[in-house]
């Protein structure tokens, strides 16, 4: 109504039924948990290696270009 807050939906803004706050909290907690399990794994080596390679290729071609 007054201040625009992207994280809050006023029920009147949506002409659809809304779930109650408890369900919403429950679902958002589960979603966070879902992501947390992936975050805990860290970045797999394949991606670190890939970035390293991309970096290397670019450094080499950069060095070649400047000659």
């Amino acid at each position: 109504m007054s201040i625009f807050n992207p994280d809050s939906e006023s029920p009147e803004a949506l002409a659809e039924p809304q779930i109650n706050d408890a369900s919403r909290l429950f679902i958002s907690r589960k979603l966070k948990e879902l992501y947390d399990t992936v975050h805990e794994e860290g970045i797999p080596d394949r991606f670190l290696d890939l970035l390293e390679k991309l970096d290397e290729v670019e450094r080499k071609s950069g060095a070649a270009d400047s000659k």
Partner: protein
Amino acid sequence: MTVHEETGEREFKREMLAALPNLRAFAISLIRSRDKADDLVQETIMKAWANQGSYRPGTNMRAWLTTILRNEFYSQVRKAGREVEDVDGVYTSRLSVPSEQNGALDMQDFKKALALLPDDQREAILLVGASGFAYEEAAQICGCPVGTIKSRVNRARLRLQELLGITSETEFGPDARETGITVSTGTR
């Protein structure tokens, strides 16, 4: 190569690394097959690297990468002719009925319920509810109006609530108290 360019590149790589865990979590949650998700992340990294000229350092790396990943995902889906993967048996196995004991609802059930959502709803609730994007950012990532994202998120929540059987207050378990719910029946 100038010193300035060199610094810019390091910065790009650093921002990218910082954004990767969240991007990967989105990919895995969106398509469920970890192998496919990681392949998709890999392609996203390569695309992003090739297009780093179009990224302005210090802007929203997460949103930028997520947009690339999403576009890549849907172009693959289109190519594959909408085959539905059922890696973990999520579609064929039925949701277990939430048990009475503390409304114990494990992560498997939650994943199954999430998998049953239409793609656009799952995507919307992941972007807003888990990736932590504002509705506006999610709308930009998906290339649709903010109202559409809000509506999809709302429908996703309603459907999850229904699938998980968490409509009843008594099924919230021990955490219900912090949410301000009064357990009215005498089951505890």
